[in-house]
């Protein structure tokens, strides 16, 4: 144990890792703070760069950039009422109201401080949850993996902030995309329409870049430019944060726990965690009437929550290759490329790498405090960068990055196509995250299903009579029946349903 820890230290204390991490932090802070550029997009555009780094340095860039970007989205939220990333949307109004009251320092300080606390709590959950789960997962067979993958897909639809039917449709679309290519049980070209480039299937990473980056540039074409930020001097950022920590320690802990749970659930990420935690904070607050008028309580809870989910999203990703959120979906792609194939054996065979990941998360969250303060002070300069200079550069990065993934121009076509698909889906209320999950997990679901059926000689009984398999099966089926039941219930009792607020 101590030996592995020392090995892990050696892994991360190389110049390559340190420089990569610092650069990625700055990059994450800048991208996160620019409205319209999300943390997922920041991570997706990093992927081509990670090709040329050692495995640990590659993971370090992703960890640092994603954690920083989630915090940094709070900055324009507080100063302009425009969330920098969707994860800050839940409380941008509240933070802006605080700025108007002259408490911008307190709002931004709470952002950076509770983000760091949340990130560390999430990392602790990763350290505590993952190894014992890995023990259990070692005994998993394809039957369990099938149910687990199905459960993951169902989770994404349950927690989506839109119609569950549309979420399921999005998931099916993703699965359909994963059908393309020759990598299937029969090895026959499937849905390739005679195009040679489609034989290899659709690469998840260009698809993600398209859905999250190109679609965003497309949206920028039609939306007005956000107003410039007024220049201002800030007082002490961290003043008063310790009092807040003591005053709201229960809210903070609850935010951490909710964030961890939502992070672990496949497909649901930081934005969902922030929404749920903010709503929860308001519901259980002693002074709910203050919410919306510039009250810091919701900020504490939601800020702690969204960063906690970033780290805990890695739990299912590392254990099963099931992404906890869209950022983790990208991380999984990078893990595969770096020979750190997700799976329970990762924790026994590559234990030092796992410890290195924990350490990276903790360091990134500690670094967030000083770097975040610098970023807040420089925000009025960074946010002055007009959209018309940022978006063209993003376009170039999309083109070159997707080309670099396979040194193949077909990647650029994929990016363009998925940009359109993502844009149309988002505009019509179809959650993009559900489709992403489908694309990433499709092959896994199909392989687990087909291999299981071959093993059982076509009988579906073993899907239910193995103990863990049965539990997972009932959970997956329950997850499917739940929205149907809610819908029926609402149908039968339209009056009461309208009055009651249904938690989800």
């Amino acid at each position, binding site marked *: 144990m101590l030996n592995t820890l020392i090995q892990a230290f050696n892994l991360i204390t190389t110049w390559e890792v340190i420089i990569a991490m610092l650069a990625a932090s700055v990059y994450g802070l800048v991208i996160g703070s620019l*409205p319209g550029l999300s943390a997922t997009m920041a991570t997706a555009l990093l992927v*081509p760069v990670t*090709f*040329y780094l050692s495995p640990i340095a590659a993971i370090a860039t992703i960890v640092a950039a994603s954690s920083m970007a989630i915090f940094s989205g709070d900055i324009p939220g507080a100063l*302009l009422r425009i969330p920098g990333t969707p994860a800050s*949307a839940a409380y941008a*109004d509240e933070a802006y109201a605080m700025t108007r009251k002259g408490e911008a320092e307190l709002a931004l300080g709470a952002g950076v401080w509770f983000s760091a606390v949340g990130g560390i709590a999430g990392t602790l959950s990763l350290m505590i949850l993952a190894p014992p789960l890995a023990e259990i997962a070692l005994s998993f067979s394809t039957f369990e993996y099938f149910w687990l993958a199905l459960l993951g897909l169902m989770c994404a639809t349950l927690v989506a*902030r*839109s*119609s569950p*039917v*549309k979420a399921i*449709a999005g998931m*099916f679309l993703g*699965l*359909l995309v994963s*059908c393309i290519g020759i990598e*299937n*049980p*029969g*090895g*026959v070209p*499937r849905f390739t329409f005679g195009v040679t480039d489609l034989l290899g299937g659709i690469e998840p990473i260009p698809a993600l870049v398209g859905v999250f980056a*190109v679609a965003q*540039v*497309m949206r*920028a*074409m*039609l*939306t*007005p*430019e956000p*107003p410039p930020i007024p220049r201002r001097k800030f007082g002490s950022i961290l003043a008063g944060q310790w009092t807040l920590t003591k005053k709201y320690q229960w809210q903070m802990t609850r935010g951490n726990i909710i964030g961890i749970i939502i992070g672990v659930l496949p497909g649901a990420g930081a934005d969902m965690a922030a929404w749920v935690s903010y709503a929860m904070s308001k519901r259980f607050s002693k002074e709910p009437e203050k919410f919306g008028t510039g009250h810091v309580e919701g900020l504490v809870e939601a800020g702690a929550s969204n960063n906690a989910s970033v780290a805990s999203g890695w739990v299912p990703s590392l254990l099963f290759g099931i992404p906890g959120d869209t950022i983790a979906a990208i991380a999984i792609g990078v893990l595969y490329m770096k020979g750190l194939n997700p799976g329970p054996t990762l924790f026994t065979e590559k234990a030092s790498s796992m410890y290195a990941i924990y350490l990276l998360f903790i360091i990134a969250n500690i670094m967030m405090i000083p770097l975040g303060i610098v970023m807040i002070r420089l925000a009025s300069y960074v946010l002055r960068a*007009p959209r*018309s*200079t940022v*978006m*063209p*550069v993003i*376009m*170039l990065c999309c*083109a*070159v990055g997707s080309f670099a993934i396979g*040194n193949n*121009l077909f990647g*650029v*076509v994929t*990016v*363009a*196509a998925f*940009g*359109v698909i993502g*844009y149309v889906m988002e*505009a*019509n209320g179809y959650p993009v995250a559900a489709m992403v999950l489908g694309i990433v997990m499709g092959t896994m679901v199909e392989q687990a*299903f*087909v291999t299981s059926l*071959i093993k059982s000689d*076509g009988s579906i009984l073993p899907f239910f009579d193995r103990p863990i398999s049965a539990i997972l099966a009932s959970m997956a089926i329950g997850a499917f029946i739940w929205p149907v039941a809610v*819908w029926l219930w609402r149908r039968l009792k339209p009056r009461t349903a309208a009055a009651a607020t249904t938690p989800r």
Partner: protein
Amino acid sequence: MRLPDRVTGLFLVGLGAAAAFGGWRLPPVPGQPVGPNVFPLVIGIGLLLCGLAIAFGIGHSFEEEEEIVPYEGGEAPAPRGKLYGLRALLPPALLLLYVFVADRLGFILTAALIVYVTATALGARWKLALPLTVLAPIAIHLIFSKLLRVPLPIGLLPMPW
């Protein structure tokens, strides 16, 4: 680009039916209970059912809450002509342009074209757009070609490094 649910739902029905049909026609693997045809069949039928449900407005009641997203910074855009919505297609069109001309024109020229068009479309004045058009492709070329060794097409305008 908000289409009525009926339209997107019916599109999904069509796509699902096509996927199911395409999957059903794939050859099964002899001696194996399930082949490559099962998965697309299941997905296609699933999509079809979802599409039907969406077209008939099932599950729409869950969507109401989404309207409260506080994303109303800035004023509402001035109403423009019908073709204004097509501007959204500019980024993917530029990427496709890159695919077709990058090998002939080379990275620098194609990239400059993309940058200039995107910047002006987003309302940059020429004072901003021109320097960006010159500097951004060179910077990206430096990072990707020199540092990361991505083989970018040289084309008409080779870089001196």
